[in-house]
């Protein structure tokens, strides 16, 4: 069982002390300590993540406030707090419990501590990325962790630049974090997947409503007609070219050390200029990381990293792993989430958002690994 749950008061005190030490370290670098509620209004999280969040977070309710969720992470409440009146630039740090519902694996902790840091600063995004990465790396130094990095923004830029309809790009963008659905959409838009027979019949039908039942429910006849028109327009749209699909595949296959990845992506950008600015952003980040003393020649970069499990990130993403303990989840992770600040900024009257990046460490895992290292030396 993971450290924290079911362990002695002494061990728990050790984990708490580690969390406090991490937060103090982030504070010493200029971040302001903040507290966040444990119970968050469920509506915000449901709007962001959809129904899937119910499988990952605990939901409770009362008759007065309705559904509440036990904080699954700090990023959302910290962003909300900041968008409702924080001065900029801002750096925050926090430490406390997060709660994750587990339905598959009993060995995974459903309650653990996180200590983290978040930077809201649009002046130098590459510099802020490097700053967060360096802070998290320093906080976990000595544990022999392997860092993995990625940048989901490159794939997003590639989708945004496809020579196809806005509707198709929006559909792909909406599923950027769901690789299977993304792939099946791309195959369909490229004319590689068979059109379902009922779809073909619908598009060929003189009266698509011939077999339809009586009007029922909130979704109106007009909405159905609009979608049929959209399907017809889509059927008339030329397929996404094999060349562009191959370039997307080439981006998704990039997995090497940062300097080689950069070179590789620059080659792809020659054929796909829409990703150039995202790739140059990666170059600037590499530079900023090097300035902070990170050995980028040994740093792994994977263009598809974090695509399945880090959904609110839309740029730089990273994780730190204990190589000798593949059974453990990442000891630390983080990334850039500019779009999240725009979504959460809407209700605060700040729909333009602010560039933001952050990272978290799990003190329980730090203590567990530290004890191992201590025990071996």
């Amino acid at each position: 069982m993971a450290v924290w749950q079911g362990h002695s008061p002494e061990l728990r005190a050790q984990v708490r002390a580690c969390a406090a030490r991490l937060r103090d370290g982030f504070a010493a670098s200029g971040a302001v300590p903040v507290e966040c509620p444990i119970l968050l209004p469920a509506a915000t999280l449901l709007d962001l993540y959809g129904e899937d969040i119910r499988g990952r977070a605990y939901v409770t309710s009362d008759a007065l406030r309705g559904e509440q969720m036990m904080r699954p992470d700090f990023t959302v409440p910290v962003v909300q707090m900041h968008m409702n009146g924080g001065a900029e630039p801002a750096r925050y740090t926090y430490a406390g419990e997060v709660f994750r519902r587990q339905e598959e694996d009993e060995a995974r902790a459903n309650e653990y501590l996180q200590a983290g840091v978040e930077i809201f600063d649009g002046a130098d995004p590459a510099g802020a990325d490097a700053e967060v990465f360096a802070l998290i790396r320093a906080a976990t130094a000595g544990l022999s962790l392997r860092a993995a990095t990625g940048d989901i923004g490159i794939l997003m830029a590639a989708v945004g630049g496809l020579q196809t309809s806005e509707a198709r790009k929006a559909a792909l963008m909406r599923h950027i974090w769901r690789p299977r659905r993304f792939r099946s959409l791309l195959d369909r838009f490229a004319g590689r997947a068979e059109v379902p027979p009922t779809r073909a019949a619908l598009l060929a039908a003189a009266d698509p409503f011939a077999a339809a039942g009586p009007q029922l429910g909130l979704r109106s006849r007009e909405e159905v007609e609009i979608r049929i028109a959209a399907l017809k327009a889509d059927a008339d749209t030329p397929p996404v070219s094999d060349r562009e699909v191959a370039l997307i595949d080439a981006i998704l296959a990039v997995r090497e050390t940062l300097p080689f990845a950069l070179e590789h992506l620059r080659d792809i950008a020659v054929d796909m200029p829409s990703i150039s600015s995202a790739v140059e952003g990666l170059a600037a980040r590499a530079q900023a990381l090097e300035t902070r003393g990170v050995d980028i020649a040994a740093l792994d970069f994977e263009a598809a990293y974090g695509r399945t499990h880090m959904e609110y990130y839309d740029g730089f993403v990273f994780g730190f792993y204990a190589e000798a303990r593949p059974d453990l989840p990442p000891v630390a992770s983080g990334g850039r989430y500019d779009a999240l600040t725009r979504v959460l900024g809407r209700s605060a009257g700040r729909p333009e958002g602010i560039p933001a990046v952050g990272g978290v460490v799990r003190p329980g895992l730090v203590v567990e690994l530290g004890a191992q290292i201590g025990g071996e030396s």
Partner: protein
Amino acid sequence: MTVKLGVPSKGRLMEKTFDWFGERGIELGRAGSEREYAGRVGGVEGVELVLLSAGEIPRDLAEGRIHLGVTGTDLVQEKLASWDLRVEMLAELGFGHADLVLAVPSCWADVDVLDDLDAAAAAFRDRHGFRLRIATKYHRLVRDFLRDRGVADYQLVDSQGATEGTVKNETAEAIADITSTGETLRANHLKIMADGLILKSQATLYRSRSAAMTDADRAVLSGLLERLAVD
């Protein structure tokens, strides 16, 4: 101690279960009046019949309060995470057949496959300002199914009965419910999605993987399973 067998406490599921055991020489029945929940067992020693709500049998099996239980596949898979680690399926009993399916109004001429539902859900959210509602009581099964297939922008709303009526009442846009013939769905102007079969369910005999047993219980259980020809 005795080997405890949990059986649904009312209706056709109970009667058919009694028949199924009866055909194999094990007589099950209520101990007293129609309203009494105590059971009696004939034809075998050391087995106790416990009459329970079909919905409670999965948890009772998982927690080891009963050794054997008859309930629907749908209920076991909805209520138990990692169900196959907690209970063992011994036999499908050949009755209580029902499919858990996704159904949408038949007036949705544009929606036939999940790909359509996903696109319709995105447009619905843009237009109405909330996520398309799917009424069900099988939250976990439906959520896992839709997540696995990459459908987004929907929400599940709880419906413990008369689920087919929720669309007409405008408390949901679509439903996920159990059907055996599809008749109720059709009568309510709903159609089953072409790839909307979430689970095929039937009455099934399960064994608990955690219920405590004495050596005597073990002997009774193996004798019983031999008589039932399921082990």
